[in-house]
């Protein structure tokens, strides 16, 4: 649709602008303000320039949790995107069965994140949880509170359980948008199942998949409450991700300057990557 140039449209956007400015700009400015000062108490703040940034970038603990975060987000994408596409391909295309599948698959998305943690905390326990008990019963020594690898696998499994439905639903809606004629043409050509997927379904899923990757990357990069409830970041700090490190610093230790500098770096990483994705999306739109 051709849009009409009209600057009066700003009046319609103004409420959103003010609201988001209030809840995003003011806090962000506060963070910037903190990040360049050393604060001992009310009225006792000293300008320290880029000191905090240098310190944060050199901090071993933060670098570790950044690396952990990237590894985690990488695995999340590697597992959830193919799995989500697979599930979407298997879902019935319409009718009551379609709606029912849709609702059942959406259930994990509707559960508050701390309850997701609680569910897995119970489910994966060796004594009272079906999953942990089952694994132990198979003769494999499994204990997510004591063993680093087990804790990692449990957090990853929990995230796959929690968020693959989102990828599946996005792909499902993308698949439903493909006109029936495409499939009929493929049938006349006697295209194999793989060819149908590769040359009809996958290209049509491109834009949906970009969004799925974007959302999964962002949200896995901000993960906090689920591993916090499940493992508490342990054993040791093996499942402590960026948000938890930051929260401990800001609320737990009240280390304002350092936490603020850390926040800004964190935000900038997310923003940079989201900008890359956003450009990719608009390019994909143009090609269409």
């Amino acid at each position, binding site marked *: 649709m051709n849009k009409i140039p009209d600057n009066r*449209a700003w009046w319609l956007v103004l409420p959103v602008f003010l609201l988001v400015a209030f809840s995003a700009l003011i806090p962000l400015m506060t963070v910037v303000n903190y990040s360049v000062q050393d604060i001992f108490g009310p009225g006792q703040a000293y300008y320290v320039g880029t000191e905090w940034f240098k310190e944060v970038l050199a901090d071993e603990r933060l670098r570790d949790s950044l690396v952990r975060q990237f590894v985690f987000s990488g695995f999340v994408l590697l597992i959830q995107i193919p799995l989500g596409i697979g599930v979407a391909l298997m879902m019935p295309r319409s009718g009551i069965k379609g*709606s029912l599948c849709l609702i059942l698959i959406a*259930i994990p998305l509707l*559960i508050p994140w701390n*309850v997701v943690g609680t569910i897995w905390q119970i489910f994966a326990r060796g004594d009272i949880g079906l*999953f942990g008990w089952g694994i132990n019963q198979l003769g494999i020594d499994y204990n997510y509170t004591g063993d680093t690898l087990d804790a990692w696998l449990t957090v990853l499994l929990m995230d796959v359980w929690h968020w693959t439905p989102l990828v599946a639903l996005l792909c499902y809606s993308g698949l439903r948008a493909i006109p029936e004629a495409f499939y009929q043409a493929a049938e006349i050509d006697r295209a194999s199942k793989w060819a149908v997927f590769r040359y009809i379904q996958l290209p049509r899923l491109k834009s949906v998949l970009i969004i799925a990757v974007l959302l999964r990357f962002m949200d896995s990069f901000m993960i906090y409450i689920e591993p916090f409830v499940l493992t508490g970041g342990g054993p040791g700090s093996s499942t402590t991700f960026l948000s938890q490190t930051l929260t401990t610093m800001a609320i737990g230790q009240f280390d304002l300057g350092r936490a603020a500098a850390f926040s800004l770096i964190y935000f900038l990483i997310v923003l940079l990557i989201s900008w890359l994705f*956003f450009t990719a999306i608009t390019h994909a739109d143009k090609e269409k």
Partner: protein
Amino acid sequence: MRQTRSKNIGITIYILLLLTPVYWLLNMSFKTSREILGGLTLWPQNFTFDNYVVIFTDPSWYNGYLNSMAYVSINVVITLLVALPAAYAFSRYKFLGDKHLFFWLLSNRMAPPAVFLLPFFQLYSSIGLFDTHIAVALAHCLFNVPLAVWILEGFMKGVPREYDEMAYIDGYSFPRFFIKVFLPMIRSGIGVTAFFAFMFSWVELLLARTLTAVDAQPIGAIMTRTIGASGIDWGVLAAAGVLTIIPGLLVIWFVRNHVAKGFALGRV
């Protein structure tokens, strides 16, 4: 035919695996704590509603649900009120800085809530809104408003502009056109947007917990607090968890026919 059957089997297995952890929670919520700790049973041997009774009779429990409902509802209303006109502007007009504004809005959806934790706490404390429903509702606008604008813009683009022009020729003023003609046409879009706003506000806990203490404490915070106190009553915890899933199920049931379209059009 064979292909459809193997697909059906595949999706059934996936859904069963998906529901097993939820079933386990449900199962546990109907057990007595003696049974839970006594050994593993696949279904409750002594079926009991005691855990639910605890929650429905103790104000410190059920107030958590009421608080969560309150701020989620306020948030959905605010989100829709501000996002509707803005989405209309983005879908119909070119204006100074529109693309930048849109990206800036979206960037707030991408911002880790942990970043805003401390400033939010101070901001809302300083204007006297700390521990109120409205504070959490406003804080959740940070990610819900951009999302709502995005989804609604997708739906509004699907309505041809000829409708707008016809309405003006018929002598409708803009507000009257918007409310009487335009909004009914994108009903399903509004429903889907409300669903997503509800969902993201309902599942968020980090901000909700930080901005409240007693009077507006969400159910999630009450649940984590219970874990800290004198051992864990797994049965009550499980019952509380089950109850948090129900509102979401009700809401998605209402928009079930439009949700798939919402995902496609609005590009959540």
